[in-house]
């Protein structure tokens, strides 16, 4: 059962990473325009290089 000492921190760390990613996306206002973002991915406007 020593493996638990390794696996529990690992699973918590992975979950924590997910939480951080969520907080980051929330801070970046990525939930302000869900409809627009769903449509924007279809446009090829900024496919070659990101919007400056």
């Amino acid at each position, binding site marked *: 059962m020593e493996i*638990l000492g390794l696996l529990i921190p690992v*699973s*918590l760390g992975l979950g924590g990473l997910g939480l951080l990613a*969520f907080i980051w996306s*929330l801070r970046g206002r990525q*939930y302000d*325009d869900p409809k*627009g973002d769903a449509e924007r*991915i279809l*446009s090829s406007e900024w496919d070659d290089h990101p919007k400056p």
Partner: protein
Amino acid sequence: MSDATLHDHDARLSACPACDAAPLASRIAGTRGVQEDIVLSLPTIHCATCITDVERVLQRHPGVRDARVNLTLRRVTVDAPGMTAEELIPVVESIGYEAHELDPAALSASAADRQGRDILMRIGVSGFAMMNIMILSVAVWSGAEDATRDMFHWISGAIALPTVAFAGQPFFSSAWRALRHGRLGMDVPISLALILASAISVYETLHSGHHAYFDAAVMLCFFLLIGRYLDYRTRAVARSAAEELTALEVPRAFRVTPAGDEPVPVAELVPGDLIRIRPGARVPADGEIAEGSSEIDRSLLTGESIPVAAGPGLALSAGEVNLTGPLVMRVTAAGRDSSLARLTALVAAAESARGHYTGLADRASRLYSPLVHLLAFCSFLGWYLGTHDLRLAVNVAAAVLIITCPCALGLAVPAVVTAASGRLFRRGMLIKDGTALERLAEVDAAVFDKTGTLTMGVPQLVSLDPIPTDARPVALALSQGSGHPLSQALAQALRETGTEPAALQDLREVPGHGISGVWQGREVRLGRADWLGARHGEATLSASWLSLGQGAPIRLEFSDRLRPGAEACVARIVASGRRVMLLSGDAAPVVQDLARRLGIEEWRAGVTPVEKAEALRRLRQEGLHPLMVGDGLNDTAALTEAHVSISPASALDAARTASDMVLMGSDLAPVAEALELARSARARIKENFAISLVYNIVAVPIAIAGFATPLMAALAMSLSSISVTLNALRLR
């Protein structure tokens, strides 16, 4: 860089909430030199191409630094220092999209956004904690023992306690508020369950106990927060659309100064100012006409469908519409003192005095909260007296509290309301008030206003027959020259028959009277009866007269155009067995004619605003729950008096403020649909209550008997929440 400016804009708005509420004037004074972003409303955008087109055309326009479309809100925010919305609207319209200027002062989106993000953050944190604790709990449920179990409990506790403290805050603070006012809301049992479950679990962990309820406490937070978020979303969508309606009317007036006209915000007008009112514009303040003559449309204020002739000396009220000639008006009362603002304030006062309606959820929680506390306390007492084991008794009481906790109840109402209002929103109906849907389900009588509600407030020519065929080109040429609604209606009717306009010389409009020209050497005129030397007579329909220079003037009658869907809507409400009434401030024959056309048996004409409100009050005294549909200032009191009220988007701001729902499109049919949808939504809410009750009836005896385990609590909670949500989604 440009992105930063957009963010700064939000930060600036939210850093000073008072600024958002203060009049535009102080904002301009305070932020002089700082460029505001321009916000345009784009009602017709719907796809990826629309977004790209609008952004590209705006970005290529010289002077524009950045443009960002928000498809959810159908708006574009443009960062263009030194430019005005008037310069940008044609740019967007040139590629075929409708655009309207929005007043950024009326949009207070940022504060509400923060609240939404705050709930989302708490959902995210409790979701993360729930998943990790569940992984550990599964190990405990499947038989982890001794030191392993204790370690898992300790780790769970280390995750759960901070999570409950953070994610449970909205419940704790609202429970505290309720307790301070001596009430037991839904949040008191929730908070008690959270605290008791965490405390007992810590105690059990310290003493190497078998059961810890960390998972249940966090799960409770998670599900209830989802209910809160749904609730918030519904209100945020409604509020932002309502704000947009207000923001569309940019309050601006043209002040006459020696150096020419200057545009000023309405908030800056003071009595004594001279302002110019262009034809077609709404009067921005109360005043008296100083020069010019025209006709005034008072339908929104009084319900009269016939325009009034206006000349120097006539008093105007804010909200009336100037029809034909430019007017110069001396302001007598502006802003807060104008009659329009006074009426709005009156309505606000009446609204706060209106008996507070308790929603189904509140009524359920009033029954529920004492019962839950009583059950938990009784089982604690029973077990303590029976076994004299304090630890066991507290454990059982905590299990009862957790299992009965209104997890499903907290989701039951928001899930149904979200589904119903989402569907109504797509049909063009906006719910402004949280309990409006439930009140709508109780409606058993519908009262309609006439002008602007059942009719469009736009005239329509009754018949072309009175005009001889050879005179039609002349009539068309005359009517095309004027912006008066009757002229426009005549021109449209003539164009539909394929008439070509005749060539006229010396065409000129005499504001307030009509339009004249010279045709084959004769003077021809189109206008008011007295100007053409005819008698208006007894008629009540709006009429215009055509003179061909010889013979008697020809009388042209106009009726009001029916709003699309009005017939179907009234027919459906009558068919559903509800009482339908028509109350109008207009003259009797017109009202009678409309009532007969729509099949409404009860109608009253020439009703004053006070009488309208009284009629509604009488209906309520008869024990009915009347729905009022109206748009004018004369309806506001009645809208407030009604059990539930609806106004079309074309209504005055005061009427929209007073009503619970706003109809966005011009079609009236969604009103009848909303009545039916409200009924089925109420049935669905009751079903949801029944479902959660069944879960409780099964689980509570087990908990009281002391057989409840954390696994059971987790299963009961998630099963009831999911079944309630699925049942709500059936409404779509």
